[in-house]
């Protein structure tokens, strides 16, 4: 790759330019998957379990099938017995002999109208016999009730250690933690809990499927990972992957909640049975009982320090509650360990991550998955330690943070380390010197680090005869403006303006592969692939010009949309036209991949992501007031200092920060999918409380730019980190304001007031 060949001149990259799909979105023309229809389309609905764990005694679909307008009803009995999943292949399309959670799919219906489909669901006769269930992740580890008695039969990644309800166990070990703890000045031990959080995208999961005359299926859907969805569909449908085509029309938010197959398989199976296009659109209730929320977690964390607050070691265990299927749980048990280690020189480490099954909704990878849970624990505890030792919480962090060239928790070398700058800037901006300005008012701070997820990206870049370029990428624009960012990188490298770039839609049949819009990687990785394509195109342009002028390419430049050699110039548009005459047009295939850094395998056991690619560093600080009577929190100010490496488009980076913080505030203060006896009690958007415009403060963004070696013009991943710190930053501010230390999320007014009362007594 020729990334070094280009220097950011700040002409297009680095500028606050409006996003490329903005006009379509403000005038209502942008087509989302939920808007996509086909003539003759049927409406699909899914019947879901109303019991958390039960034996299926009987499913009788005959009454539903006989209803006028009903075109098909399918259950597990009608489809191949395939189990799919990422690390563990444990999930069937429909419940087999038992339902495993409240919301588990039992059957699906396609009918000529949505109303008829709904009536048909009610006409399916299902008899369920309650089974004892397990809901608590800690109990699940020792409980005799197995969510999957057949767990040993599943196909799994060889790296996993499993046992009954425990579907993964991983460790991170550095030095002799026991010895460090034995010699410590003090040891702190705490337990923290976090709750299930829905990604909250405003467009529900929606898919339309249609089969062609040759037995190929096309699915129009709002997935973040079209290629992963294509592969999973090919397994479920028992078709070669090339016969499954996934097209993403547009997507109304994802945040990791639309990574894995959602309703695509129901649409495809119903469409196959009826030979008609079928659409399946999730309801809000289905979203809250049966989508893939952020796992809840229980963290035990023990930390040893010396007299000056220097960290000597951390021991701990995080239990990630996967729900009924493993999903991303095993990976999250792994990643959470890096977050527990934090951006700190820990001395020694003995951390364990466990992923466990329960009879609850299968969870997934919501934005910075595992980040907020682990950060809430480690950053809350840093403040508890500081308070106990009488050291300022900022000072305690500064004494322990990592610096350039330090080793990370897996023994990898850390580069472009900026956590000190982030901490100092966030603290200065929030007015740290006055940390408890009034009774009931306080300030809190938290810091962290996070990876830029790897995986490969391919792009095609085609130059049109008017001198503009089309970018064809397999990465979905999920709203972050990552493809506007990648286009800015491309425009910069080709000496074009952003207006000269068009972005093609994602279609697995024609788009080059991309690992997907996930893991803060899209602008970074697609941007790098664009640089590679631009380098190739530049060479092609130079060679065309050289031929035209009968000279060599030596000393040629690409500037102002033309190739320049001495006093000769020729426009890119002209070269594109020439290429059409004899060379089949100008096109390049650019690729990018970021392999992880070298690490010490002796420090990790069964870890799925042992060393992070291009980590970023960040700090957030909050200033809030707590009403001592009601426990209500009002956030006065909120500051984020985040190292983005290079700000490709500051406007949309701020947008990522503001949106991520707002989701983090939701997780911190109000959001929880509430279970009682295995049933979801708040499966609607009134009782599941996401922040409104009234709940989110003005968020002040400080963009730190400590360039990375691997990203386009030094960029680092941006999208996920903002939602990591709010639970800890707010918990620390609540403690500063009131003296009450919250150990579980969400920190609702009721919980805070209870804590305040018990502190008073």
């Amino acid at each position, binding site marked *: 790759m020729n990334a070094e060949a280009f220097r950011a001149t700040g002409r297009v990259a680095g500028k*606050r330019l*409006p*996003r490329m*799909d*903005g*006009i*379509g*979105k*403000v*005038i*209502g*023309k*942008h*087509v*989302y998957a*939920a*808007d996509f*229809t086909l003539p003759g389309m049927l409406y699909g609905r899914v019947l879901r379990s109303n019991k958390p764990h039960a034996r299926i005694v009987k499913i009788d679909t005959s009454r539903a099938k006989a209803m006028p307008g009903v075109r098909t009803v399918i259950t597990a009995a009608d489809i191949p017995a395939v189990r799919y999943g990422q690390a563990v292949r444990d999930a069937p399309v429909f419940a087999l002999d038992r339902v495993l959670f409240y919301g588990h799919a039992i059957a699906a219906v396609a009918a000529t109208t949505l109303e008829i489909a709904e009536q048909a669901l009610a006409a399916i006769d299902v008899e369920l016999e309650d089974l004892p269930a397990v809901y608590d992740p800690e109990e699940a580890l020792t409980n005799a009730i197995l969510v999957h008695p057949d767990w040993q039969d599943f196909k799994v990644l060889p790296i996993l250690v499993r046992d009954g309800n425990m579907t993964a166990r991983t460790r991170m070990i550095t030095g002799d933690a026991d010895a460090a703890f034995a010699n410590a000045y003090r040891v702190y031990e705490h337990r923290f809990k976090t709750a299930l959080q829905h*990604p*909250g*995208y*405003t*467009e*529900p999961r929606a898919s339309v499927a249609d089969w062609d005359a040759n037995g190929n299926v096309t699915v129009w859907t709002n997935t973040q990972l079209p290629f992963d969805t294509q592969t999973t569909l090919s397994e479920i449908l028992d078709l070669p992957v090339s016969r499954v085509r996934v097209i993403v029309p*547009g*997507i*109304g*938010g*994802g*945040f990791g909640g639309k990574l894995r197959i959602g309703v695509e398989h129901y649409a495809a199976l119903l469409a196959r049975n009826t030979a008609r296009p079928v659409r399946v659109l999730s*309801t*809000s209730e289905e979203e809250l009982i049966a989508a893939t929320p952020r796992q809840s977690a229980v963290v035990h964390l023990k930390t040893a320090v010396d007299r000056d607050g220097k960290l000597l070691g951390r021991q701990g265990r995080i239990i990630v509650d996967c729900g009924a299927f493993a999903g991303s749980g095993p990976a999250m048990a792994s990643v959470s360990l890096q977050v527990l280690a934090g951006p700190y020189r820990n001395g020694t480490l003995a951390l364990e991550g466990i992923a466990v099954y329960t009879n609850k909704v299968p969870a997934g990878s919501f934005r910075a998955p595992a980040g907020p849970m682990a950060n809430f624990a480690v950053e809350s505890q840093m403040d508890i330690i500081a308070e106990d030792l009488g050291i300022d919480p900022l000072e305690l962090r500064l004494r322990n943070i990592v610096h350039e060239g330090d080793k990370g928790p897996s023994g990898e070398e850390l580069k472009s380390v900026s956590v000190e700058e982030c901490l100092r800037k966030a603290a200065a901006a929030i007015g740290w010197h006055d940390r408890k300005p009034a009774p009931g008012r306080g300030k809190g701070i938290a810091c962290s680090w996070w990876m830029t997820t790897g995986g490969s990206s391919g792009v095609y870049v085609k130059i049109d005869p008017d001198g503009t370029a089309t970018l064809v990428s397999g990465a979905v624009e*999920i*709203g*972050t*403006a990552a493809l506007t960012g990648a286009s800015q990188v491309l425009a910069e490298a080709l000496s074009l303006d952003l207006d000269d770039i068009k972005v093609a839609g994602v279609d697995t049949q024609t788009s080059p592969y991309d690992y997907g819009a996930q893991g803060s990687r899209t602008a970074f990785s697609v941007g790098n692939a664009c640089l590679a394509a631009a380098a190739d195109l530049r060479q092609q342009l130079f060679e065309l010009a050289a031929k035209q002028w009968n000279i060599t390419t030596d000393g040629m430049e690409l500037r102002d949309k033309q190739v320049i050699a001495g006093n000769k110039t020729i426009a890119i548009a002209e070269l594109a036209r020439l290429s059409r005459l004899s060379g089949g047009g100008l096109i390049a295939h650019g690729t990018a991949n970021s392999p992880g850094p070298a690490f010490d395998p002796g420090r990790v056991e069964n870890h799925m992501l042992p060393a992070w690619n291009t980590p970023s560093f960040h700090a957030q600080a909050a200033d809030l007031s707590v009403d001592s009577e009601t426990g209500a929190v009002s956030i006065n100010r909120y500051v984020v200092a985040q190292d983005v490496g290079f700000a490709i488009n500051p*406007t*949309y980076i*701020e*947008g990522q*920060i*503001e*949106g*991520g*913080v*707002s*989701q983090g505030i939701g997780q911190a203060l109000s959001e929880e999918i509430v279970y009682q006896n295995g049933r979801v009690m708040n499966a*609607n*958007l*009134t009782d599941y409380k*996401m922040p*409104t*415009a*009234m709940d*989110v403060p*003005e*968020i002040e963004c400080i963009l730190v730019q400590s360039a990375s070696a691997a990203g386009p013009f030094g960029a680092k991943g941006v999208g996920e980190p903002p939602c990591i710190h709010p639970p800890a930053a707010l918990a620390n501010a609540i403690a500063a304001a009131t003296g009450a230390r919250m150990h579980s999320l969400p920190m609702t007014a009721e919980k805070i007031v209870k804590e305040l009362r018990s502190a008073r007594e």
Partner: protein
Amino acid sequence: MSRRLLELTINGETHQLLAEPHWTLLHVLRNQIGMMGTKENCLEAECGVCTVLLDGRAVNSCLLLAGQAEGHQITTIEGLGTPENLDPLQQAFIECGAVQCGYCIPGMILTAKSFLDENPGHVPSRQEIREAVAGTLCRCTGYGKIVDAISVSAERRLAKQHKEPAA
């Protein structure tokens, strides 16, 4: 079920269709007429993505029966501006970076429009703007840049009013 003839005025155009009495305006817009600019999500008046204007007032079209909209002027996002001639709010949303996934944006812009139209002659405070749009959920933006856009739009509107005083 018995359908009856419904006559709706949407963005100044008359639409006639046979509708069942329980159909919502949202259902008619999206699934009968095929105007997809008005979005759907919760269908329970909890999220605001389905907001349209009824005689200039913001309403949740997922709860309003289509029959109740008869005889009223319905404005959807498609009726607000065109790419060549954007409504000032649409322009400000783009300029301020207030659009991410965009799914909440039609409802958000129409909510803002009815709010600004009800409050001519002054620039509302950021807090007033936040209160006004609190019924529309946006999961992407954290609302700050949406408030910026509405605020900028209100300032421009006032500046324009001062330049062209009403006769």
